[in-house]
């Protein structure tokens, strides 16, 4: 993903927010969490801040196995995904039908100053770009999608989320110039307790 291509991150997230089901868990991390938090909060949001970078997909798998009646949506970045590519194999070994990973591919480590990732064309001596959708298909994801334009994402999201899962969606997004790391929205223990209560049907 080059810096001059891709849909705006916030607009892509606004589309997700608009389509979000009330009973759906949304896991967000890193720069995506920063933007997601500006759109409001929800009892079933798991803002994964602080995190162990790369582990959002694994956390999502655990939730998907524990809560098979709910859709679990993981909003992940390409740098984070590169840190935990093996999780794609782990996920497909379990085949959680309710798990959707949306990969926001901006090609850079945005919050550290937009250095190119080793998966982006700018970060590779050959100038090629890692095809995350092909990786996901090779790992065994049942449904994979790739959206390069915001309008296509807005109109195609419902079909992409309709399954059968596990589903892997790649969105080409533009980096946010000067984008900072997300701030924790509050004490972790309290947030975990509230999230678990919301899953049990209490707020």
């Amino acid at each position, binding site marked *: 993903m080059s810096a001059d291509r891709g849909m705006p991150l916030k607009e892509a997230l606004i589309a997700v927010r608009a389509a979000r089901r009330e009973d759906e868990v949304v896991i967000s991390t890193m720069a995506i969490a920063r933007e997601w938090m500006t759109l409001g909060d929800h009892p079933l949001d798991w803002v994964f801040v602080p*995190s162990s970078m790369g582990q959002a997909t694994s956390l999502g798998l655990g*939730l998907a196995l524990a809560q098979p009646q709910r859709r679990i949506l993981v909003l992940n970045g390409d740098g984070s995904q590169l840190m935990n590519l093996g999780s794609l194999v782990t996920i497909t070994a379990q085949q959680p039908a309710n798990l959707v990973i949306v990969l926001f591919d901006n090609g850079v480590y945005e919050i550290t100053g937009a250095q190119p990732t080793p998966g982006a064309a700018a970060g590779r001596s050959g100038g090629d770009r890692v095809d995350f959708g092909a990786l996901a298909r090779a790992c065994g994801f049942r449904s994979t999608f790739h959206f390069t334009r915001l309008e296509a994402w807005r109109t195609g999201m419902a079909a992409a989320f309709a399954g059968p899962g596990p589903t892997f969606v790649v969105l080409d997004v533009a980096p946010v110039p000067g984008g900072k790391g997300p701030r924790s929205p509050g004490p972790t223990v309290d947030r975990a307790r509230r999230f678990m209560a919301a899953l049990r049907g209490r707020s």
Partner: protein
Amino acid sequence: MFRGDQVASLFTRCGITHVVLVPDHMMGAWVPAIEGAGIRVVSVCREGEAWAVAAGLYLGGCQPLVMLQCTGLFESGDSLRNVLHDWKLPIFSVIGYRSYLNQDKLPGDTALAFTEPILKAWEIDYRLITAPDQFDVFAGHLEASRRAQRAGAVLIAEG
């Protein structure tokens, strides 16, 4: 060290619903009995994943346990830190202590030098088990940790 049916029976008694692991030769031998007891086994590709998968399971209302070798403990430090210390989730782990009982295969195995200092550095309340007659130590620590809803570990010597 211990039989699979012993371990599976203990896990069942403690309400463990999922075991998340990268197996070594000791734990791998337990897997059929654990699965046979109705506990779901989730194999991960690398140990850092195990803590995060277990965290998701716990948040979702299950009672997971992590099993890995000490080398996997080394690999998974940041994920462990996040789950046990940032979020304070009470995930119990079973850790294989490579070369503790026999250094013929890997003389001077540095896993021996670093395992316990690292467990202490991560402030994990662990019990060292070096003989088959210490199953009660394993069971007692798991049961106590579950009752108190706190993280803990057993470090089981391997040859």
